C-alpha cells in the first residue's frame, strides 16, 4: 500500500514537473493558398490611445474594404507587450493571422524565421510597385540585400516635445539643440517636484532607441559590418553612460522614471510635471490626456555640441510599423488586396492623419495635412537625420539584452549609484555574451 502511495505521489509529481519542459513545436506548409478567399484575419498593433480606440478607427476602414472586395476582415488589435510573443507562437504553430502589423525594427529578426511572405518584385507589383514607398522606410523592412519581409505602413521618428509654459516659467526661450543645452536648461527646470526630461526606464525598446541614436552620435554602432554584436566599443559605452547620466549625474530625469514602462512619462508631461519628452508621435495621446495642441512645441532631438551639427547628425531611429503577410495564409490573393488597400494613397492619408504619423507612401506624404509644425519636424528628421536600427536577424535579442542592461543601470542610478564607464562596460559585456553565437 505504501509503495502504491509513493508511486502515485511520484506520478503526480512528474506530471506537475512536466510543465517545466513543455515547449511546443510544429511546422507549417510553405507558400500561401487561396482556400478561403472570402475571409482574412488581421492583427493590428496598438497604435492609438487604447485598443478600443484602434478598433473604432480601423473598423470603418475594414468595412470599406469588405464593400469593395467582398472579403471580410476579422480584426484583432494586439498590445505591443504581447505582439512579438504572439507572432512567435503563430510562427511555431503555423496558426497565425493572414495579415499582421510588425514593429519595423523586428523585420530582419522575423524575416529569419521564414514565416513571412517575401516582397519580391512580383508581390510588390500587386500593390502598385516598390517605387511608391519612401526609401528610408523600405530600409527597415528586412535585412539589407534581401527582399523586404514586410511593407511600410506608418512612418515615425523621434522628436523633442516641450511644454511651452514650463519653459517660460523657467525663463528659457526655446528648445535645446544640443545635449549640453538640454542639461543646462534641465537644471533650471528640475526643482520643486518638476523635472526636465521624461524617460521610460523599464521599457526595453525605448531604452534601445535612445542609446542607439546616442551611439550613432558617438560614431559607434551596436553591430559590426558582419552583423556581429559589438556592444562594448568606446562609442557604445559612452552613449549608454550619457543616457543613464541624464538621471544619475545630471539629475534632469526624475529617478521615478526608472520604473516607467507604460507611457507614464507622457502623462507627467501632460500634467506639467515634466518639461520635455523624446517621443515618436505624441499628438493624439497628449490630446487624450487633456493637453491642447498650443500648449506644446516640437523640436528635433538634441545632438552633441560641435560638428556635424543639428541638421545632419543622426537624432532618431527610423521608427514605424510595417505590414506583413503570413506565408501560409489561406487567402494570399485577399491578403495582397488588403495590403494594397491599406497602402493606397487615400487610406494612407486617412490612417496616418488619424494616428499622427507620416505616410511611407510618397504620394500620400505630399498631402498638406502632413505639413503641420509637429509633423514637419518628424518628416524632416526621417528625410535627413534618421537611421534604421541594425537590420540583423538578432535585432530583437539585442533590444532585450542591451535594453535590460540600460534598465538595470537606470535602476542603479535611481537608487543613487550613478553609472561609471567601468560599470557600463561590464553590463554591456554581459549583454553581449548572452547574445546567440550565430
Amino acid at each position: 500500500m505504501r509503495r502504491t502511495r509513493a508511486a502515485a505521489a511520484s506520478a503526480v509529481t512528474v506530471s506537475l514537473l512536466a510543465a517545466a519542459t513543455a515547449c511546443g513545436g510544429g511546422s507549417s506548409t510553405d507558400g500561401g493558398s487561396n482556400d478561403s478567399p472570402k475571409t482574412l484575419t488581421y492583427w493590428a498593433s496598438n497604435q492609438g490611445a487604447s485598443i478600443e480606440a484602434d478598433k473604432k478607427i480601423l473598423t470603418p476602414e475594414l468595412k470599406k474594404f469588405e464593400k469593395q472586395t467582398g472579403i471580410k476582415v476579422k480584426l484583432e488589435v494586439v498590445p505591443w507587450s504581447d505582439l512579438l510573443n504572439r507572432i512567435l507562437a503563430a510562427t511555431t504553430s503555423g496558426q497565425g493571422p493572414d495579415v499582421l502589423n510588425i514593429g519595423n525594427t523586428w523585420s530582419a529578426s522575423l524575416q529569419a524565421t521564414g514565416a513571412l511572405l517575401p516582397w519580391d518584385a512580383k508581390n510588390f507589383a500587386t500593390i502598385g510597385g516598390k517605387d511608391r514607398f519612401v526609401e528610408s522606410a523600405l530600409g527597415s523592412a528586412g535585412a539589407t540585400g534581401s527582399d523586404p519581409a514586410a511593407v511600410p505602413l506608418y512612418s515615425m521618428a523621434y522628436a523633442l516635445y516641450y511644454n511651452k509654459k514650463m519653459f517660460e516659467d523657467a525663463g528659457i526661450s526655446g528648445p535645446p539643440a544640443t545635449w549640453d543645452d538640454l542639461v543646462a536648461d534641465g537644471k533650471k527646470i528640475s526643482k520643486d517636484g518638476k523635472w526636465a526630461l521624461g524617460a521610460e526606464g523599464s521599457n526595453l525598446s525605448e531604452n534601445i532607441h535612445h542609446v542607439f541614436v546616442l551611439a550613432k552620435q558617438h560614431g559607434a554602432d551596436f553591430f559590426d559590418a558582419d552583423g556581429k554584436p559589438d556592444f562594448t566599443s568606446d562609442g557604445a559605452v559612452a552613449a549608454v553612460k550619457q543616457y543613464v547620466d541624464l538621471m544619475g549625474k545630471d539629475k534632469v530625469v526624475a529617478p521615478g522614471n526608472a520604473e516607467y514602462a507604460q507611457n507614464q512619462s507622457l502623462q507627467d508631461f501632460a500634467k506639467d510635471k515634466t518639461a520635455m519628452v523624446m517621443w515618436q508621435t505624441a499628438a493624439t495621446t497628449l490630446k487624450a490626456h487633456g493637453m491642447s495642441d498650443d500648449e506644446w512645441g516640437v523640436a528635433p532631438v538634441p545632438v552633441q555640441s560641435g560638428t556635424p551639427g543639428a541638421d545632419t547628425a543622426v537624432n532618431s531611429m527610423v521608427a514605424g510599423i510595417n505590414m506583413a503577410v503570413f506565408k501560409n495564409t489561406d487567402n494570399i490573393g485577399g491578403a495582397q488586396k488588403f495590403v494594397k488597400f491599406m497602402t493606397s494613397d487615400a487610406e494612407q492619408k486617412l490612417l496616418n492623419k488619424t494616428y499622427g504619423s507620416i505616410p511611407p507612401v510618397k504620394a500620400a506624404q505630399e498631402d498638406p495635412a502632413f505639413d503641420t509644425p509637429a509633423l514637419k519636424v518628424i518628416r524632416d528628421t526621417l528625410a535627413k537625420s534618421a537611421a534604421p536600427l541594425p537590420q540583423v536577424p538578432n535585432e530583437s535579442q539585442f533590444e532585450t539584452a542591451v535594453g535590460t542592461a540600460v534598465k538595470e543601470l537606470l535602476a542603479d542610478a535611481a537608487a543613487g549609484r550613478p553609472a561609471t564607464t567601468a560599470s557600463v562596460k561590464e553590463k554591456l559585456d554581459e549583454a553581449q555574451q548572452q547574445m546567440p553565437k550565430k
Partner: protein
Amino acid sequence: MTVTAQPAVGKEAPPGAPAPTPRRRTGRVRRNVLPYLLLLPALLLELLVHLVPMVIGIVMSFKELTQFYIRDWGAAPWAAFDNYTVSVDFDAPIGKALLHSFFVTCAFTVLSVGLCWLLGTTAAVYMQENFRGRGFLRAVFLVPYALPVYAAVITWAFMFQRDNGLVNHVLHDQLGLTDSPSFWLIGDNSFVALLVVSVWKGWPFAFLIVMAGLQNIPRELYEAASIDGAGMLQQLRRITLPSLRPVNQVLVLVLFLWTFNDFNTPYVLFGRAAPEAADLISIHIYQSSFVTWNFGAGSAMSVLLLLFLLVVTGVYLVLTSRGRRAADA
C-alpha cells in the same frame, strides 16, 4: 483485480454445478477491461498534454534551436550537449546568470513556503475556536486564493509603484518609516515585493489544507489533554502538529513545486525583464527561450530544472516516508 477470464475450476466448483454460461464469461471480461477503458481517456490526455511535450522539450535541448528553425524545429542542427555545457559553465555570463537565478529562486522558495505555511497554520489553528464572525473571516482569508492571479498581481504592481503607489503612500507619507519613497519594482527591494505577493497569494491554500487536516483530529484528544493539564502550546506541540504531519508533508511539497516554478507572479509584476534581485529561474528560462529566441538553451535549462526538482522531490519523499515509518513503529 487478478481475476482471470477462465471459468473457476477445482475446489470451489461443487460437483454437478452448472458450467458458467457464455454470458457470464463476457461479463467477467468486461469487468476486467472496463477499468482500463475508463482510465484510457485520462492516460491519453496525460500522454498528450504532459509526456509528449516533455519528450519534445528534451529533444529540443539537444538542438541548436534559434529563430532560424522555429518554423520547422525538426530541421535544427544537432547540438549534442552544447546547450547543457553552456548552461552549467558558471564562469561565463549565461551559466553565471543561471546560477544566480537558481540561488534567488531557492531563497525565495524557502522564505515563501515557510511564511505561507506559518501564516496558514496559525490562521487555521485560531479558526478552530468557535467565535462570532468565524465564517466571515474564513471566507475573507480565502479571497486571495479565489482571485484571478493576473488581476491580483497587477493590482499589487500598481500598489508598489514608487510615486503613485499605495505602499509608499503608507510607509513614507503616512507612517514616515522611510526617508524617501522606495523603489519596489526595480532594484534590490523587488525581492521583497515578489515575496510579499507570493505569500499573500499562497498562504490561503495552506490555510485551507491545514484547516481540513485539523477537522480529522478527534476532539477527545484535546479534551483528555486538557484534563491532564496540558496548556494550549503543549496541545499544539503534542497533538496538533504531529497529527498534521501527513497533511503538511503533501502541503509543503506542493507549495515547494508551485513556488519554485512560479512564473505568473514575477512576469506580471516585472514584465519580461525581471530585476536581478528577483530574477526567478522560471523567468530566466522564459527569457532564454522566448525573448532571446534560444530555444535549445532554454530547453536544456528546463531539463536541468526538472532533474533538480525530481531529485529534491525524491529525497523529500524518501525522508518523509522514513519518518512516517519510524513514527508508525
